[in-house]
């Protein structure tokens, strides 16, 4: 077990180094640089060449990479070309918005999708199952941006209590106003993006849960449980449910990177100040420093998430041994 953990850890470091090189190369192989975007046609070609030199953008790539990775190891992700602000600060100030939205979306998705998927498996081909299946396909097929715009036009613009952009009213803060006033304010902003994320995310999990449950209820040990005279309730909760949950639990490991990555479309439409938009804007501005820090963060989260998934497998399924 210990050896396995050490091996996994070394693998993780190698993967991260590889990813840092690849993301560095991709950003630098793309034509153009931040100076083009920043100065656009407000600066003459002559001026641009001068600014490029000041930023050290003329140095050979391996040197630029070593300079960068050397600082990253020390925890310094550099400053943004465009804003001049420390990259880590820019990412950290955007992260909470993304975490809040994705965290609640995930909670809602699992709270609803798991029981719904289970019931529709137990009552396969009932009206409930048909409704769930239809709604799930609908939710899967519905383009998020379209659904979001519909919500804005038919709910946001019609009901005063529902906000269509941003995440908080300026001046309404925890500790300043009464708890419920602030809570109501925050909910009025998060409700629409949350509905979109939950609705489109729920479909997949519900279908997954249904399939997993169907798989389990046709297993021999369930038949055995039934034949030895256990009440149906006990068969379902005691035997079927826990086993059907196995693949779902391990899914949570894969959700970790999603939690940290922004939903760009939703953030754009609802002006939700999350991290996805920061990354996309940085890409279009060729602001290397932010993009590379963001890639590294995503890679780290994915690697850790995979690792957690493996551990979780072992915890919930005694048949699996990690060597």
């Amino acid at each position, binding site marked *: 077990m210990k050896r396995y953990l050490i091996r996994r850890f070394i693998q993780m470091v190698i993967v991260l180094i590889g990813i840092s090189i690849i993301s560095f190369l991709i950003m630098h192989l*793309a*034509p*153009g640089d931040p100076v083009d975007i920043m*100065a*656009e*046609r407000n600066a003459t070609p002559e001026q641009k060449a001068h600014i490029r030199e000041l930023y050290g953008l003329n140095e050979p790539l391996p040197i630029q990479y070593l300079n960068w990775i050397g600082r990253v190891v020390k925890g310094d992700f550099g400053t943004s070309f465009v*804003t001049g602000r420390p990259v880590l600060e820019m990412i950290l100030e955007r992260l909470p918005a993304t975490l809040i939205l994705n965290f609640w979306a995930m909670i809602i998705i699992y709270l609803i999708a798991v029981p719904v998927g289970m019931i529709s498996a137990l009552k396969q081909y009932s009206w409930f199952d048909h409704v769930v299946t239809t709604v799930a396909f609908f939710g899967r097929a519905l383009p998020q941006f379209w659904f979001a715009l519909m919500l804005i036009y038919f709910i946001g613009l019609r009901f005063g209590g529902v906000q269509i952009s*941003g995440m908080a009213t300026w001046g309404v803060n925890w500790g300043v106003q009464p708890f419920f006033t602030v809570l109501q304010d925050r909910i009025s902003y998060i409700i629409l993006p949350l509905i979109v994320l939950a609705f489109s995310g729920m479909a997949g999990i519900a279908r997954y849960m249904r399939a997993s449950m169907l798989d389990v209820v046709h297993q021999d040990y369930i038949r055995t449980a039934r034949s030895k005279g256990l009440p149906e309730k006990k068969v379902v909760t005691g035997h079927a449910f826990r086993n059907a949950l196995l693949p779902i639990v391990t899914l949570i490991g894969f959700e970790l990177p999603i939690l940290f990555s922004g939903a760009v479309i939703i953030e754009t439409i609802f*002006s939700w100040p999350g991290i996805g938009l920061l990354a996309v804007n940085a890409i279009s501005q060729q602001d290397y420093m932010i993009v590379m820090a963001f890639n590294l963060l995503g890679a780290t989260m994915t690697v850790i998430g995979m690792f957690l998934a493996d551990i979780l497998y072992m915890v919930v399924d005694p048949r699996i041994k990690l060597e």
Partner: protein
Amino acid sequence: MKKYLGIVVVLLLATAVIFSGCTNGATPTPSNGDNGEDAGPVFGGMYTYGFSGEPATLNPILSSDSITSGITNFINESLITLDENLEFAPELAHDWEISEDGLVLTFYLRDDVYWHDGEKFTAEDVKFTYEMILDPGYTGVQSSHLKFVDDLVIVNDYEIEIHLSQIDVPILNRIAAAALGIIPQHIFGEVEASALREHPNSWDPIGTGPYKFAEYQSGRHVVLTANQDYWGEGPYIETIMIRLYQDSQTLLSAFENGDIDFIDRIPVEDIDRIKQTMGDDVTFVEIANNSYYYIGLKQNHKFLQDQNVRQALMYSLDRQSIIDVVFQGYGTVINSHSVPFSWAHNEDVTEYEQDLEKAAELFAEAGFTKGADGYLYNEDGEKLEFVIVSMTGEEDKANVIALVIEQWKEAGADVKVEYYERSVLFNQYLDVGEFESYMWGWNLSVDPDSFNQFHSSQAKLNEAGEPDPDGTLVGFNDVEYINPHVDALLEAGRATYDMQERIEIYGEIQQILNEELPYIFLYTTNDVKAMHNKVKNVVWSPLQPIDHHVWYIDPAFH
């Protein structure tokens, strides 16, 4: 993504039209301004507006984006400014004069101005700001604004002289712009020019203006508060809230929802609907943009070097129809490097109304005859063809180019378009001057100077500094337009302060450009802006709402 938004909005509109038919016959509401029942300015309230995007910095001298200048406008001030007639007006300098030889500009500064942190504003700050821009380590784009500044001499605390190496009349306009806003020496005095962008106060600005910076939250807002110690009138608005949106369609929804009080540009396809739904609460102002769009033609191109070909291309186009189709009429045809409301605009130029016969004649003169396939061929059997390069992601421009190509095809020219991502377009085409033709637009200054675009010293130059098609591109004369007479006129226009003389000089330049056509001049657009009626006393210049410090919010909305 934008494209889809557009489709969805159209669908929504269609639905809205169907449903509105069921409710009631909407009565047209005239857009009304102030109601006359004014009690005069009252302090208080909040003015909210929004941008689609994020400021790149909050330091005026590093700004290169309109969002930054739209914010620092409230916080920082320049020596002089432009009033509602686009004439120079005092700001930090209460008076100024120009020496006999035109080489020394003396500014007399106000002695009652304090920075937001309480320090006194003096001529040192002005000298410091301009020297920062002239520093070799400066990373912003304003250095060319002060290109001919030789020396900055402080006469006393409230008097500064700008010495020029040669007469540079357009400099007054640049000094009046927000991009040359004065920054405090006592804050930035110790920092290297190359590290100015990283300085914490580049994101926590201290100015002399009517509004003080309060807070910035990335992706959310910038908040400004009234500067109670402002030297001039006002300010009357307690809080300015600048919301940051991520998409122009979201910005529009926010305006419709009442989240913001002002919108800089309503998309043309939404104007009629918004006028219907919001006409009671909002004042609409249609403003011509101080910019124009064109297709630049490489002047030494195998086919395009012939003036007859260029003129024929111009006569082949029905530019008004393009404006009507793409911009629903919110625009004006442009025939030279000037917009109609400029003080130097010359009406007396060829208008190039579509005339296919004339175009055919000119093509024939250039040696082109129509082949069996409908395209034009010269004596060597070469087809008249070239490529326009343009930027991806701009729907309006793409629509214009499609119509232009269609009309040119009709006339027999086989023109293709290639789209490139922004930095590729600059890197491989525009900044190196390698293209047959390209589409772009110029944002103009109030000053008619066009030295950077058409002077031969701004084209590709060789080591000796002479124009050379194999040289390196220096300025914006990427079409390599070389005309010694225009060179002389452009130099003369920069060298005289006499308004009448300048009108004549730039009038002549416009005529020559109109005849020789380094560009296919296309159009300028009009924006419909909208301001909520609760904001009172708004001053509109021909370009934008100005003088925020005298605005106030209707007390009913406090």
